């Protein structure tokens, strides 16, 4: 809740104030689920009896409308439309209502509600992200189990194909929100010196849209799965069963969520900075989150558009992707990769921002080349939207463009290299405090070099002619997505855990989780590079017998990673409840998030901070924050 007007400016009588408040205060996750299931049922029955002439309960139209019903019903039930409904009735929420929405004095029940406090939203995102990532991780283990033997004999083909498709979409969705969701929401506004996000109700909306999206995405399992891979290339995805309709509705809902979140983050970044927080003084983490959101705003709608056209092809008889009707599968591929490559940087940049932030604190040094890194991130943002066709070198779409796309893709290694320079420059001659978050940062350095450099191989057309569609590609992007982004996200979690929960993650067990994960990644994916070089295609249940050894090693490594993640999960749960207590600034960091009390109070700051220098004055004699008392806040 932002404070923009004093109480006297609210022209509501007490009677009006309570009118909107009564029902609103009874809504929570349960009413949301009820509303979702209710409207899904309505959609199901209506389409079945009115629209569907075939009489099938499980046609594409029935499934699509059922899940659209779920989306709308869930959002109604959770209370997402309370504001608009009140406006339509000529009312606005009273101050009391706004404070209720912000979760004032509600204890833990606010985590189950449509809550506008950015810290509650951050924690909600954190839990949701972990649920999604663990669902995706379980699927990864099933995939590795199947690949233990070359024959494809464990699961039937359809089940297996569904596993890697669902693994892909869940992991991509989970990683898009993995850093931005929890820490972009919880930490970033405090870093800016803001009392909340620019649009707190949109913030809550973005989270509950994610939960709404998880409904159809997880329901895919129950209704037969998807057999297309997460890239769902048309026309294969037009052939597919009704699971594809659920996935399409889920993806469109998810993109609505990222778009709402992206707009909110950019607006917060621009308008909510406190006095003295100039762009040059702004820490690097908010920059990473903001630039990532900006790329997402450009990129993600292409996927939504592609999915909507796909739904039209599946339910309305259009032929956007069907050659016999004048369409083209290349249309899908272009729309998909126009999202698909920028999306990689949407995932990467918040993690990079967090890693750089952590490096400064634990090397006890200023960030190396602050402005250069911001320039590098901006360069990545611009280049990221003109590299997509490197995924299409071997599709035959536009052979004449292979050279130009090879150029843009190789160019992106220059700004990415600048970020690496800043990272090692920050470590350079530092006094490295080897606490748990820093351990993960060193893991990121190791993995990101391997993941990044193998990406340059693939940008080269002759190499891509051999490697496209093989396990080499899979190993490459797992080094980036797991080895760099997930490691970065865990570093961020370990780093900000004391601020979120008031407790430390245990250092000793944390190191066990780290080493299991680190070794697991090396074993799994180095071996997968070997399988890819030797010619193993991706998305297969069976492979040539000569590749048995490398696959066996990968499977073993996969289970080592699983052990690491289970230790990490156990740690998070245990330390959240009983971890060693931490003070408000246990790392002696200088950014504003560490200058607040723990637990962070509603509206974050007891007094509005005024910033006089950037937060990287390690070894310098500057005071980063001067606190003043002339505040205009209320409600505490």
């Amino acid at each position: 809740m932002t404070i923009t007007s004093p109480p006297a400016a609210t022209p509501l009588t007490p009677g009006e104030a309570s009118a909107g408040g009564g029902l609103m205060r009874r809504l929570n996750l349960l009413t949301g689920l009820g509303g979702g299931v209710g409207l899904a049922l309505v959609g199901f029955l209506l389409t079945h009896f009115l629209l569907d002439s075939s009489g099938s309960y499980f046609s594409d139209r029935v499934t699509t409308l059922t899940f659209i019903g779920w989306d709308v019903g869930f959002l109604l039930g959770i209370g997402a439309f309370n504001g608009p409904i009140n406006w339509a009735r000529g009312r606005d929420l009273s101050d009391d209502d706004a404070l209720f929405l912000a979760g004032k004095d509600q204890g833990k029940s606010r985590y189950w509600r449509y809550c506008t406090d950015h810290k509650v939203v951050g924690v909600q995102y954190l839990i949701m992200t972990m649920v999604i990532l663990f669902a995706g991780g379980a699927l990864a283990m099933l995939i590795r189990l199947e690949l233990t033997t070359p024959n494809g004999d464990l699961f039937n083909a359809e089940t297996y194909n569904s596993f890697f498709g669902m693994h892909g979409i869940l992991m991509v969705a989970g990683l898009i929100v993995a850093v931005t969701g929890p820490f972009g929401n919880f930490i970033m506004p405090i870093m800016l010196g803001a009392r909340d996000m620019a649009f707190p109700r949109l913030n809550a909306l973005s989270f509950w849209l994610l939960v709404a999206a998880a409904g159809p995405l997880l329901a895919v399992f129950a209704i037969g799965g998807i057999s297309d891979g997460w890239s769902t290339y048309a026309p294969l995805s037009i052939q597919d069963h009704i699971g594809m309709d659920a996935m399409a509705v889920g993806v469109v809902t998810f993109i609505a969520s990222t778009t709402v979140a992206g707009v909110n983050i950019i607006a917060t970044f621009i308008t909510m900075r406190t006095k003295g927080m100039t762009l040059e003084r702004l820490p690097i983490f908010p920059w990473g989150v903001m630039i990532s959101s900006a790329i997402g705003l450009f990129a993600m709608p292409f996927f939504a558009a592609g999915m909507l056209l796909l739904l039209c092809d599946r339910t309305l008889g259009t032929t956007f992707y069907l050659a016999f009707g004048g369409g083209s599968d290349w249309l899908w591929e272009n729309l998909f990769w126009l999202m698909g490559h920028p999306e990689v940087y949407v995932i990467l940049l918040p993690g990079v921002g967090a890693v750089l932030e952590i490096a400064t604190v634990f090397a006890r040094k200023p960030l190396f080349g602050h402005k250069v890194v911001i320039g590098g991130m901006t360069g990545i943002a611009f280049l990221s939207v003109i590299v997509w066709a490197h995924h299409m070198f071997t599709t035959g779409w536009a052979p004449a463009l292979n050279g130009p796309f090879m150029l843009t893709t190789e160019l992106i290694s220059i700004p990415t290299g600048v970020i690496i320079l800043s990272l090692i420059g920050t470590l350079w001659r530092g006094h490295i405090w080897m606490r748990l978050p820093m351990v993960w940062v060193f893991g990121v350095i190791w993995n990101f070099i391997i993941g990044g450099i193998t990406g340059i191989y693939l940008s080269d057309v002759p190499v891509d002619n051999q490697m496209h569609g093989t396990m080499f590609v899979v190993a490459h992007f797992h080094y980036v997505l797991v080895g760099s982004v997930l490691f970065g996200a865990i570093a961020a979690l370990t780093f900000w855990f004391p601020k979120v929960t008031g407790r430390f993650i245990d250092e000793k067990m944390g190191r066990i989780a780290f080493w299991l994960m680190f070794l697991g990644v090396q074993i799994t994916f180095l071996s997968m590079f070997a399988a890819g070089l030797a010619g193993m295609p991706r998305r297969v249940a069976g492979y040539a017998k000569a590749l048995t050894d490398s696959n066996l090693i990968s499977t073993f490594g996969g289970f080592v990673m699983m052990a690491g993640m289970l230790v990490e999960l156990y740690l998070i749960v245990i330390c959240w409840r009983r971890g060693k207590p931490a003070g408000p600034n246990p790392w002696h960091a200088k950014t504003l998030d560490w200058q607040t009390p723990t637990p962070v109070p509603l509206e974050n700051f007891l007094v509005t901070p005024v910033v006089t220098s950037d937060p990287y004055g390690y070894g310098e004699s500057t005071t980063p924050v001067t606190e003043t008392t002339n505040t205009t806040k209320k409600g505490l």
Partner: protein
Amino acid sequence: MTNENKEKQGKLRWGELITVWLVLTILTVTGSLTIIPHLMPRAASSTMHLNILTVVVFSVTAAPVGSFVYAIAAYGLRNWRAGSGDEPPADGPPLRGNNVVTIVWIVVSTFLCVFLLVWGLAALSSDSSAAANSTFKVDVTGQQWLWTFHYPGTSVTTESLYLPEGKTVTFEVTSLDVVHGFWIEQMGVKIDANPGEVTTISVTPDKLGTFDVRCTEFCGLYHAFMTTQVHVVTPTKYHAWLQAQQA
């Protein structure tokens, strides 16, 4: 922190840093030169020779770059560590950046980029010049989950591919249903089969033997098993085979 530690952190031992860098570089270069050609399929065309060479060249180029970052990280872990206790060590030196280092870094990475680009473009043009000389065509059709090969000018249609050694062939590739990826693993030939479109790719097989065709675009239920063989035979044998098929 003891005085000895301060001393240790204050001075940079360039010898140690450079030694680590050189050792790592030599290890990765040796690995690239030996392991990669060993792992990749034995080449059955000049295209594939070039592909393998490119992977090796990229690895050798990348080796000193990656090793440089690793050397600094390793050196830092050894020499700049200042405890892991509850209290942070004293602040490090306030280095906020270094224009010379940044500019050198950007210039070097740009130079490497240009080198890789020129290499890639040269490889591309050598591939396309081979294609221009080709008059021998084979129609390739993908469908779930089968490849068929038609030899234009004849009535021959087969499910495994026969090619004469040493003659440049252009594949005209299409699909009857969904997107498939036509890949001859040992020849570095890869092009998608798209419904309603014909895509082309050329190659000159330069080795006798049997090679593998795989599908590299996910195409549904039995994608993993959409495989067949390429038989590269002498031109005489090829013509005899073609005659026999038509008879």
